[in-house]
């Protein structure tokens, strides 16, 4: 029985507690708004053992505050203003910032209003165990609640509220520690208001509230701490130091439109909104996909890109058709063009030079644009949402002023320098940072956050966050990679580990008995001949299989999936963490788990000869692999063996083996072949992606020694077919049970236009046609794209076709129409993920729903709520995408390392296919290594035929042997020399390719 009370509100308080006002909506309607507020005295101050607040035991602020600051020997707490969180979040999050923080409700709400990502970071900060942070609900505490006065802006009102709370805290602490006669005078810590707003500071000083700017506060720390903390300071407060800075400068970029013009433009359809995608090959180009045009809107040139950064949601204005252009057919490298641009010399004469060079690059692509089909072209006029996250960068050694001679004096090393940080990704612009430790940062991978990009500056301004490690060091590279893709790789916290079974490693399935809750309504399948087939060295075995003939001539086949939902319950810290991680990330040398290793690799992993809990799907199939019926049950299994694909294959092919396991594998295999045939007949696609495998030397030293392509065996297909079967059956079941909130997965058919280019190339270069009318037709025509002399050609076409498609996504069944459930690639009308709950969170949700669908456990309330499921799946989708990209980037990095280790003098020659032609280069794909590269020519030598995708090197060039023109076109096979070249300045290992055959491009 809970305590229900009526909250009494004295009539005298009505002025403070009630608000009635009228507001005018955007459409001109006047609306009356009523709000009330109940003020209370039981809002805690959060200080441990505070004598005047009721203690509930969860106070987080230490009694004596922080004692480390020189100015406050009696201890202090900091109470930051909103602008501190808005601009200095990195500093607040830093582990170097140790002061106990009081976050006011007013501040939380203001942050939320201004920026949702920052708000989420603030919430994480509040929840962290590492720092003492307390949220004080000042708007609900009777002493600190204030109302907006006449002629007071909301901003001023909030500032006043913050000052009032700071004042209250200071008196509150004093009152709760009365001087007791005979004892030492109690130490009374100060509550220090931190604000960047000078006007606010002044008012606070007038009221006698201790106040400081963040810079001043940090500067008065001991020197060693201060230097580190100062670098974390965002550059935005520069305005305070040099207020006249932007005064006489000429704007490089046009200003953005105002919010109201953007809104009006968007609603009339004159302006368009979409995600900004930078062009990998040309830093002066980007594109924005908008629904209004079938092709993405092209943005050409610095002014038209107008400070958009990869991933931002931008508003674009499309030019008249006469001004439309085409995508550049030339590679423009930021590093090369802007090599000499100095971070400080933004606006001097050098500038013209850059502008000239850039203009030339744009003109060149303009002239080529005449014949080709034009694409909508426009410019960025506003930013809806910035997608600025910390960026992995390095500092160019040449950027440093020659400190070599003078650096012996400490003064020069500590002076502030302005440097350009070069992001690892070519999609991002360089970032200007100010630092005192410039020389220490050279040759390091560092993390940089962008703070602002003003129209007068060519580059965005940012600040240094922290050092990851040496450039080229594997740990730094790996961490950089994870940060770049937003993967949280920290260890699991104590709250999460607390959700694990207390027995730890020694947990076993309890002995069978009817009254044990674990065994309740669980089927005992321990006697079945079950085995698992996985890649070598697989530790998280989440699926196992069995098959046996039935007396009636049919076959019983079962898929047994690790019963993760038995350990991971909804609404626990472990569940929250898993849903935030979304998926396990596989890097070449490291696996970042979604669930603690105890579960993933032990308790849930279906290891051989150990009893494990499982969730089983058991079919009765006819010998022709048609489903007679299917049932789902929680079970206990004991796997008989864990095979690798190779072992299983060998076992199956060995005619001497007739044991039960082998026959089961054979039975499964025949069924799988029939299932596959049926699937292919239904129009499933057989897609390809460049998959390579990295051989690592040994477990300890992760030096890769070789790269090889992954092999596909019959047994791979066996496992795949049964997993698909299980997923489809489960999808049907949970959709039936929970039509509104079932967790499903779909793959939308790609828009036709995506294939236009590939179709055109195939037609022109190979005389082949691609029928994209349906997935079945596409599968058929892909099968026909065979070049008898070139076995790898078909794979190449498949890879290119795959890139034209959309990616599959999770969705909540109630959110979209039934007709869009289909999975294009698998040609299935419904699909979900069920088979890998150890490494994918969506599968955990599917498990819970299936478990409820078979009435095993009730469904947790959150899984009944459509918005909740949608929100989780959105996160999972994003994590999934990021994990894939991170995995690929990791492979790429290791391929580079392997190349370095392999060839003589760091070079290797390989056969490659041309996949793209540029005016001054070729995009090539090396299938053996699974990497893509770029071969550059010097300009003006080649003749480029954009329509036929060919580049011709005229005979006059001295590189050409004999007297004939050499023509290279898309799909041609060439030989390239691959070398890993270390940039002299950046120390960044870069894969560089040069053409060896048919001509030697070095001479070009």
């Amino acid at each position, binding site marked *: *029985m*809970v*305590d*229900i*009370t*009526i*909250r*009494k*509100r004295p009539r005298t308080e009505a002025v403070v507690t*009630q608000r009635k006002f009228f507001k005018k909506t955007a459409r001109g*309607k*006047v*609306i*009356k*708004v*009523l*709000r*009330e*507020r*109940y*003020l*209370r005295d039981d809002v805690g101050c959060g200080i441990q053992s505070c004598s005047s607040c009721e203690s509930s035991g969860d106070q987080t602020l230490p009694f004596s505050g922080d004692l480390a600051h020189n100015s406050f020997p009696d201890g202090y707490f900091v109470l930051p203003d909103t602008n501190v969180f808005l601009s200095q979040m990195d500093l607040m999050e830093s582990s170097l910032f140790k002061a106990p923080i009081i976050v006011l*409700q007013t501040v939380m709400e203001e942050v939320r209003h201004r920026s949702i990502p920052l708000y989420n970071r603030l*919430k994480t900060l*509040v*929840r962290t165990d590492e720092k003492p942070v307390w*949220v004080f*609900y000042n*708007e*609900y505490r009777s002493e600190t609640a204030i109302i907006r006065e006449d002629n007071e802006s909301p901003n001023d009102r909030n500032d006043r509220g913050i000052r009032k709370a700071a004042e209250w805290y200071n008196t509150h602490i004093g009152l709760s520690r009365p001087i007791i006669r005979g004892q030492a005078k109690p130490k009374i810590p100060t509550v220090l208001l931190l604000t960047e707003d000078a006007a606010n500071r002044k008012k606070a000083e007038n009221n006698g509230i201790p106040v400081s700017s963040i810079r001043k506060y940090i500067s008065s720390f001991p020197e060693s701490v201060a230097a580190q903390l100062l670098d974390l300071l965002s550059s935005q407060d520069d305005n305070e130091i040099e207020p006249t800075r932007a005064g006489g400068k000429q704007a490089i970029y046009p200003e953005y439109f105002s919010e109201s013009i953007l809104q009006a433009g968007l609603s009339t359809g004159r302006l368009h909104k979409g995600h900004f995608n930078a062009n990998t090959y040309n830093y002066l180009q980007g594109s924005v996909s908008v629904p209004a045009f079938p092709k993405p809107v092209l943005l050409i040139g610095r002014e038209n890109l107008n400070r958009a950064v990869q991933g931002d949601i931008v508003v674009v204005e499309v030019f008249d058709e006469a001004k439309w252009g085409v995508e550049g057919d030339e590679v423009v490298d930021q590093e090369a063009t802007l090599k000499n641009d100095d971070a400080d010399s933004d606006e001097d004469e050098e500038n013209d030079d850059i502008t000239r060079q850039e203009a030339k690059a744009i003109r060149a692509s303009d002239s080529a644009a005449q014949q080709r089909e034009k694409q909508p072209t426009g410019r960025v006029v506003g930013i809806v949402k910035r997608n600025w996250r910390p960026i992995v960068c390095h500092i160019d050694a040449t950027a440093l002023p020659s400190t070599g001679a003078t650096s012996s004096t400490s003064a020069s090393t500590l002076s502030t320098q302005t440097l350009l940080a070069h992001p690892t990704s070519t999609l991002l612009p360089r970032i200007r940072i100010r630092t005192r430790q410039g020389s220490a940062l050279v040759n390091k991978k560092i993390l940089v956050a962008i703070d602002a990009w003003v129209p007068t500056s060519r580059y965005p301004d940012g600040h240094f966050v922290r050092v990851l490690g040496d450039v080229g060091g594997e740990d730094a590279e790996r961490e950089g990679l994870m940060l770049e893709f937003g993967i949280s790789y920290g260890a699991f916290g104590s709250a999460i580990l607390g959700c694990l079974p207390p027995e730890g490693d020694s947990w076993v399935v309890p002995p069978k008995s009817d009254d044990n809750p674990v065994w309740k309504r669980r089927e005992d399948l321990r006697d079945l001949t079950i085995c698992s087939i996985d890649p070598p060295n697989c530790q998280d075995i989440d699926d196992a299989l069995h098959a046996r003939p039935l007396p009636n001539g049919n076959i019983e086949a079962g898929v047994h999936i690790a019963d993760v939902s038995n350990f991971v319950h909804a*609404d626990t810290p472990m569940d929250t963490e898993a849903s935030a991680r979304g998926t396990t990330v596989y890097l070449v040398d490291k696996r970042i788990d979604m669930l603690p290793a105890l579960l993933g690799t032990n308790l849930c992993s279906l290891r051989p000869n150990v009893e494990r809990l499982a969730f089983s799907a058991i079919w009765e199939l006819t010998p022709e692999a048609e489903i007679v019926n299917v049932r789902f049950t929680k079970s206990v299994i004991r796997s008989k063996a864990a095979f690798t694909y190779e072992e299983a294959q060998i076992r199956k092919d060995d005619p001497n083996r007739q044991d039960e396991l082998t026959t089961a594998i054979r039975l499964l295999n025949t069924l799988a072949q029939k299932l596959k045939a049926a699937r292919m007949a239904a129009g499933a696609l057989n897609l390809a992606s460049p998959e390579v495998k990295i051989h690592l030397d040994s477990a300890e030293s992760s030096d890769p020694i070789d790269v090889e392509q992954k092999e596909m065996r019959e047994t791979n297909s066996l496992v795949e077919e049964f997993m698909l079967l299980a997923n489809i059956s489960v999808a049907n079941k949970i959709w039936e049970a929970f039509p509104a909130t079932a967790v499903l997965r779909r793959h939308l058919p790609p828009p036709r236009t995506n294939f236009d280019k590939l179709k055109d190339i195939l037609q022109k270069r190979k005389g082949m046609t691609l029928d994209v009318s349906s997935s079945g037709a596409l599968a058929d025509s892909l099968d026909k794209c065979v070049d008898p002399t070139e076995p790898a050609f078909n794979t190449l076409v498949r890879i290119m076709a795959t890139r034209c498609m959309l990616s599959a996504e999770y969705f909540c069944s109630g959110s979209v129409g039934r007709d869009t459930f289909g999975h294009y690639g698998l040609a299935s009308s419904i699909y979900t993920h069920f088979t890998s709950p150890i490494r994918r969170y969506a599968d955990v949700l599917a498990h819970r729903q299936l478990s409820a669908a078979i009435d095993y456990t*009730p469904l947790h*309330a*959150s899984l*009944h*709520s459509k*918005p*909740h499921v949608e929100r989780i799946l959105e996160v999972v989708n994003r994590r999934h995408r990021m994990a894939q990209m991170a995995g690929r980037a990791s492979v790429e990095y290791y391929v580079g390392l392997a190349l370095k280790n392999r060839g003589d003098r760091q070079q290797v020659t390989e056969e490659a296919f041309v996949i793209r032609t540029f005016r001054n280069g070729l995009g090539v794909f090396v299938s053996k290594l699974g990497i893509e590269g770029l071969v550059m020519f010097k300009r003006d030598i080649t003749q480029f035929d954009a329509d036929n995708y060919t580049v011709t090197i005229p005979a006059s060039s001295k590189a050409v042997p004999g007297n004939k023109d050499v023509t290279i076109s898309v799909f041609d096979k060439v030989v390239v020399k691959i070398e890993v070249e270390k940039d002299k300045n950046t120390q960044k290992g870069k894969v560089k390719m040069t053409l060896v055959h048919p001509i030697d491009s070095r001479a070009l």
Partner: protein
Amino acid sequence: MGSRVEILNDGGFRSDGRRQYELRDITIDLSPQGVADGSAILTHGLTQVLVSVFGPREAKMRSQTMHDRANINVEVAMAAFSTGERRKRSRGDKRILEMAATIKSTFEPVVQTSLYPRSQIDIFVQVLQQDGGLLQACINATTLALANAGIPLLDFVCAVTGGVHSTSPMLDLTLLEENDIPHVTVAVMPKTDKVTLVTMETRLHVERFEEIFRLAGQAGKVIHGEIKRAIRERTERLVTSMGSSTRVHGGEDDAMNEY
């Protein structure tokens, strides 16, 4: 909409500073309004309704009289200024008719109609201001007005709205909360623990339902205390102002205990 306001924040406070199980302030004014036989103005937070009761009296319309009991006639009117968006609702508005029907069916088993055959009891509900929990306010005010008019009731009828945000139940929702989360209105007779009304216009999961239903039942008893106190105070004041002579009858207080 939901993104603007947090329904329940991490500190356990709702958007108006209450905690989960705290009801809003209730003010009750039982002073007579015009010529009504009994009336009550009830304010739940910022929701305010005025209920006037006439009767039992002779039915205006012949067709509506029943030979064995009184007919209860409920009419609801919403002031155009009561909602956020100024809007005049006609008397034939479906929403209003539905609400009137709900109130009528809630009170039919409670009012001892059989004591007044061939007569009519008119209940006029005037909504002055709305901020969530409209039906609960109407029902509670009707109880008060009926008691004020001296019409015999079997028990008080006390209504409370309960809702659930994700998995945390909460009571007495404001308009903001009603728009965002599923909710049930439950009217109970605290003495007998009977339920005369359960109504729900949003979807709520069965497993949550029971919890909220029980909780709203308990909250009804808290409201009961408030209503009872108001009526006692009113009666006491009446008694003192009538002078000690009426004290002879004395039974007033004892009768009150029956409620």
